[in-house]
């Protein structure tokens, strides 16, 4: 099953740092697996927990939110607010029974093309390890929810 599983990842990137970091990864031709779908927002502070859960609900196997490093926010402190908000996401993922590793918050600067590629690769690999989104994986396999 493992090699057949192609995770679907939603990645939220802020316009100024991490989207630029993703661009730099491209310019530098750093390769990473093709599973992520990037949604560009102006600031990580725009990302609401509900977007993350909507993605899971609709079948995402992993969700990653990326922003400028703390202190680097183009909008002064949007990323700090994102960090605060994403604590709730982590908590809820825990109690809801979605594996915590399916969600990640990362700070990636415009100069960290390599980091962007690394983070994406690592995240996608992690999701491959975890297997499909349990909500859907279960249905596909027709089994009870697996541990």
């Amino acid at each position, binding site marked *: 099953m493992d090699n057949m599983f192609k995770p679907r990842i939603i990645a939220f990137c802020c316009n100024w740092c991490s989207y630029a970091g993703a661009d*730099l990864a491209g310019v530098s031709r750093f390769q990473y697996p093709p599973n992520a779908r990037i949604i560009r927002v102006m600031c990580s502070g725009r990302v609401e927990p509900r977007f993350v859960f909507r993605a899971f609900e609709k079948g995402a196997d992993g969700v990653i939110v990326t922003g400028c490093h703390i202190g680097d926010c183009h909008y002064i402190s949007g990323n700090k607010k994102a960090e605060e908000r994403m604590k709730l996401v982590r908590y809820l993922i825990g109690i809801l029974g979605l594996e915590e590793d399916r969600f990640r918050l990362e700070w990636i*600067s*415009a*100069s960290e093309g*390599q980091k962007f590629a690394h983070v994406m690769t690592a995240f996608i690999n992690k999701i491959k390890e975890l297997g499909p989104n349990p909500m859907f994986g279960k249905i596909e396999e027709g089994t009870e929810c697996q541990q």
Partner: protein
Amino acid sequence: MHGSALVLGGGVAGIQSSLDLANKGIKVYLVEKEPSIGGVMALLDKTFPTNDCSICILAPKMNECFAHSNIEVMTYSELTSLEGEAPNFQVTILKKARFIDEKKCTGCGDCTQKCPTKVPNKYNMNLDERKAIYLPFPQSVPRIMTIDKELCLKFTKDKCGNCSKVCKAKAIDYEQKDEEIVLQVGAVVVASGFEIYKPIEMFEYGYGKYPNVRTAIEYERLICASGPTEGNLLVEPNGEHPSQIGFIQCVGSRDFRRKNPYCSSVCCMYATKEAMLAREHYEDIEAYIFYTDLRAVGKNFQQYVDRAKKDYDIKYIRARPGQIVENPDTNKLTIWYDDLINPNVQSLEVDMVVLCTALMPSTTANRIGEILGIELDDNGFFRAKDLLGDPVSSTRDGIFIAGYCAGPKDIPESVTQASGASARASEVIAQAGG
């Protein structure tokens, strides 16, 4: 306002000056000798005292500048003459052939991939290589290739021509000639920046001789995620990350012998930043900063240093080391220093030494001074008309100075002076009826 102005130098000061002028409606010609604007700030990893990512905050400004309808960015260009008096200057710009049709080049990079010639990469302080057709760095503005004529096989041996073959946009033009452009401007802002001292003659530190002795700007590229080692600090002989790093201040500055008697103003702080970055990359690293007087004079600088001491456990040693000796077997470096606080000379063995070298006026400053008819001071910085009362005016009316070329200063001070110079330039233009 209308009218026009010339800005010399596309570093952060030149960019800020251009934007300030252009946003008031003044037509700006921004002349930069390199193929990309950005200056030294584009080379830095982070900036103190906030540890902001340098290119992250600069790149939007570079793009804004290039896209601005009132700014004509002329890269790979030099000023060759200036005639007339303010507010009616006539300037000539030599636009060097980059052998690329700027309108056609999409910056795709196909050519670079197929170019067979590798040369040391100046942007990465020659720590890695680039091709003969190149973008200086990934975030270059404009995103247009340049052919290094001295090294390109087409020019040196009339061979290859790969770039022309692969370029789908048909942007390669080996026949392109240098161009002279004559412009009328009301005022000039000079922001020609600085150069970084290479301490080869300072035998006591072994730079150029010991592989693990680096200058700060090299370190800056090494620790930068987009640098030659992707942000990994590696030391000889094993390519492992260092366990101890020593940062040495005042290498070539505050030094009569090395002809830079002045304080470069930024080293104490960037060393603090660089030490912090080392700690952030490898939390077990021990970082030592050897300083003479810690010039943490800017806003929040002292607090930054206090934080470096407290939260990052960076050790500050009040001494300018007299000698670095390498153990040839291990490439480890012994720093000999006389700590003012402890009475005896001591030594410290480290894996890497970072020399925080002097920043000196750009080598082009002399020539620019001659062309513009403005004076330089004893240190080679542009002389202010009145150091106390008019620090942004040069010795000639209508020509203003900004940034490091007018004396040592940090980024915010350069940006401030750039705005100041553009205010004065705007006055000249406004009073000329602009």
